């Protein structure tokens, strides 16, 4: 999976959990919380949707890795690749 594909996975999840947010101009380097109205309940949902849809586990102490789209891609892409490699 490319990093751009990974960012799209995260954006797709946010679009489902927060359909009232405009995601057309999300800056990948800026913290999601600083450009979208997402609270801790929403971040928990991002983590749980990653698990439900893609089988990706994000331990609680690593939640901050999901702060921005760029950090999501850095953190999640190897996890996606590892899963793909297993199959």
């Amino acid at each position, binding site marked *: 999976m490319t990093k751009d594909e990974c960012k799209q996975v995260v954006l797709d999840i946010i679009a*489902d*959990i927060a359909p*009232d947010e405009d995601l057309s101009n999300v800056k990948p380097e800026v913290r999601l919380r600083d450009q979208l*109205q997402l*609270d801790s309940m929403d971040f928990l*949902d991002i983590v749980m949707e990653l*698990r*439900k849809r893609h089988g990706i586990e994000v331990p*609680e102490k690593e939640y901050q890795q999901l702060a921005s789209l760029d950090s999501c891609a850095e953190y999640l892409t190897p996890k996606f690749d590892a899963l793909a490699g297993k199959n």
Partner: protein
Amino acid sequence: MNTRSHYDVVIIGAGMSGLAAGIRLAHFGKKVCIFERHNAVGGLNSFYSIAGRKFDVGLHAMTNFVRPGVKGTPLGKLLRQLRIDRDEFALCEQKQSRIAFGPRGETSLRFTNDFVVFEGEVAAMFPAQADGFRKLVAAVRTFDDVSLEAAPISAREVVRRHISDLLLEDMLFCPLMYYGSATEHDMEFGQFVIMFKALFLEGFARPFEGVRVVLRVLLEKYRAAGGERRMKCGVQKIIAHAGRASAVLLDSGEEITADHVISSIGAPETERLVAASSSELPPAPRTLSFVETISILDRQPAELGWGSDTIIFFNDSSRFDYVRPTAQVDPRSGVICIPNNFDYGVGRVLPEGIFRVTCLANYDRWAILPEADYQADKLRWFTGVLRSARRFLPPLASDDALAAATLTTDMFTPRTITKFTGHFGGAIYGAAVKHRQGRTDLGNLYLCGTDQGFLGIVGAMLSGISMANYHILQKG
């Protein structure tokens, strides 16, 4: 084949909080079953039919209404968490509501879903209090009301730091207490904040078809997520083993095992299921309960001159006494609801007029009555409650105009509430003591709903959501 069923989570009660918890858990792949003793969902916010006519119970209005685009409020959180599109509820806003105090409602504060209207009314009616009121509002806005760990403080105490006029103080408390307080005289400040935001800073709305729209949406989400539901299937006992709830015993005698149990039926009611002492009831707390009269009219209330007010909170006495009355009913104060007076859009009106009045009531005084006396007293109080409420509405063309327009009536009492919901003492807002974290003596048994302490319909659903997240989903 193993005849015993096992679930990841068993939920007791298919009210708003149980359904919301169920949707969350089922959505994230938990095997969930909701057990409901009654044949209808909704619990304290439900509906019933008599002769083909549907009556709402509970819901006067959905509180916490904000318009699309307003974010970070309970309604928005609820919609996101349950993956509900706000169009599914199709909420219609109130026209206006009032707090009317004095023998004929001489002092009146109007409020709408635009807070500036209420601010203006307070400033005009209580000019010396305007500055204090602004400070109180600022304190409400900055208070962290979703913390599950906040220490309790008296709302009266906090309000008196800013408001020195007792009449205004009582007028502020009246709607907040009537729409959510399980405690007499005073509220915990966190609860005051939740209710102040829900009623005044946010507002009232209603789906055209009332509470059943909300329930239909919840049921559909729950079903689509794979949740199971068993109706007319009460839980008679929670079986405890080594500090944990290991199974629930159904009324039918069937035993269901579960990793987690969420109970929405109330804290003392849940305790009784654990103790399962079928005879011993816990000592009766001074539970607050209510009566409500419902009049179905052959015309729109506007035709009687009652077209502008959606909800009226009234009190005729020098002080507002939010206490369990010693008599069967305390008609001095109450709430009038006219569901026709929401703005359903041009030319869209409810097919019949509806006029509801709620007053405080004493459970014990109703519970002990033999059936014949019960029916007679209901009739007597029906008239008394209506007579009291009419003082706060525009006068009718003739004294019998309301009776002449009435097609049918119904009334519920504290006894009705206990009969259909199982809540001790006819409780609507639960026990006085709240369990914010939803913990019980058993490690995997949690509370949601009225005794967890988030209030109102939106609060009930958020309670189910929070407890499912906090105790089960966050833990993987």
